[in-house]
C-alpha cells in the first residue's frame, strides 16, 4: 500500500486534488472575508471601521484665543488638516480645495466644521491664524497654541510633524501630514482623506462615510 501511494501514479493525482481543495478553501475564505468587510464598510475609501479611534481630551487655542478641546468637536463632523501658514504650496492648495468643498457641503450639513491646525507654534500666532483661516472661509477654525498644546492634539490624532529649523533661520520649513482627518460627532476618528485632494473626491468620500456611520447607530 505504502509503496503504491508513493508511486508517481497515485501521488500526482492526489497532490493535484489536494492543491485544488486548498485553493478552493483559500478562495472561499477570502470570498467570505470580502463579504464580511463589505458588510463592515471597508470598501469605502478612507473609512476607519470597525474600531475607529476615540479622540480624547486635548487642549489648544482657537483663532480667537479661546480654549478648544474635544468638547468643541462633539456633535459636529470635523475635517482637520495639519499645516502651517508659511507653507506656500501644499497648505493653501489643500485649504482652497476644502473651501470649495465646504461651500457645496454646508447646505446639507449644518453640523460641519473645517479645522486648520498649525504645527508651527513659533510663527503662527493666534492673530495670524485668524487672518489665515478667514481668507479661505470665515467659518473655518484655526487651532494653535504653544508646543505642548499642539502636541496634545497631534498625539490624539496620531500625526507626526518635523520643524526643519536647525539653522535657526526665519524661513524654516515644516514637514507635516498631507491627509485630511475626519472626526464624527461622537469624537471618533472615522476617516482619513489622502492626497491629492480634489473637491469632488472629498464630497463623495465624506458623504459615503457619513451615511455609513449614520447607518451604524
Amino acid at each position, binding site marked *: 500500500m505504502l509503496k503504491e501511494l508513493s508511486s508517481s501514479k497515485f501521488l500526482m493525482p492526489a497532490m493535484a486534488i489536494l492543491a485544488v481543495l486548498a485553493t478552493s478553501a483559500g478562495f472561499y475564505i477570502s470570498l467570505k472575508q470580502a463579504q464580511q468587510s463589505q458588510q463592515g464598510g471597508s470598501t469605502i475609501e478612507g473609512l476607519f471601521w470597525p474600531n475607529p479611534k476615540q479622540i480624547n481630551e486635548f487642549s489648544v487655542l482657537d483663532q480667537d484665543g479661546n480654549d478648544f478641546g474635544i468638547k468643541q468637536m462633539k456633535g459636529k463632523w470635523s475635517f482637520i488638516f495639519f499645516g502651517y*501658514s508659511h507653507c506656500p504650496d501644499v497648505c493653501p492648495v489643500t485649504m482652497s480645495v476644502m473651501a470649495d468643498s465646504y461651500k457645496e457641503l454646508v447646505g446639507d450639513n449644518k453640523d460641519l466644521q473645517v479645522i486648520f491646525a498649525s504645527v508651527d507654534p513659533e510663527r503662527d500666532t493666534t492673530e495670524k491664524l485668524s487672518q489665515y483661516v478667514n481668507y479661505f472661509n470665515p467659518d473655518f477654525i484655526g487651532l494653535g497654541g504653544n508646543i505642548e498644546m499642539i502636541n496634545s492634539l497631534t498625539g490624539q490624532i496620531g500625526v507626526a510633524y518635523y520643524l526643519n529649523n536647525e539653522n535657526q533661520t526665519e524661513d524654516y520649513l515644516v514637514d507635516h501630514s498631507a491627509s485630511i482627518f475626519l472626526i464624527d460627532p461622537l469624537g471618533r476618528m472615522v476617516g482619513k482623506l489622502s492626497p491629492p485632494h*480634489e473637491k469632488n473626491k472629498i464630497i463623495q468620500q465624506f458623504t459615503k462615510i457619513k451615511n455609513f456611520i449614520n447607518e451604524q447607530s
Partner: protein
Amino acid sequence: MNKVNLFLLTTFIFQSLFLNSVFAKEIFEVDISEAWISEAPPTVSVLAGYAKIHNASDRPITLLTVSSPNFSKIEIHRSVLNGDMVSMEKQDSLEIPARSTIMLSPGDLHLMLFDPVKPLRSGDTATLNFSFSDGHNKTIEAKVERRSSEDHSHHHH
C-alpha cells in the same frame, strides 16, 4: 559640374553654415508660459509661483536661478509626498531635457517667493527673471491670481 556652379554651391554651403552659427547664438529656444503667482492670505510672506518651461532645443538646458525686483529671494522647490508626510525639497537647479516641457504646478515643483516688497493681491503682476546655464536670461510678467480648487488639474489662461 562647371566652375560657376561649383562656386555657387560652395558659397551656398558656406553661407548656410555661417548663418546657422549666427542664428544659433541669436535664438534662445526656451519658452516660459502660463506663469502665475498664487495670492497668499494676509500676513503670509511666502508665495508660490508656477509656470510651464519648454525647451525646444536639441540639448538639455538648466535653470539656475530665478530673481525678481518684487521679492527678496526666490528658490526652486518641490513638494514631495513620503507616505503620509509632505515636505519641501529645495532644488539647486532644474534641468529641462532636450525637446521637453517641465511644469511648475501646485503640489509639485514650484517657485518659493519670499517677502514681497509690497503686498501682492489678485490682479497684480510681478516680474520674474529666469537665468539659464548657457548664459541666457528670460524675463516674464506673472499675474497674481487667487487659487481655486481647479488649480490641480488645469492651468490658468
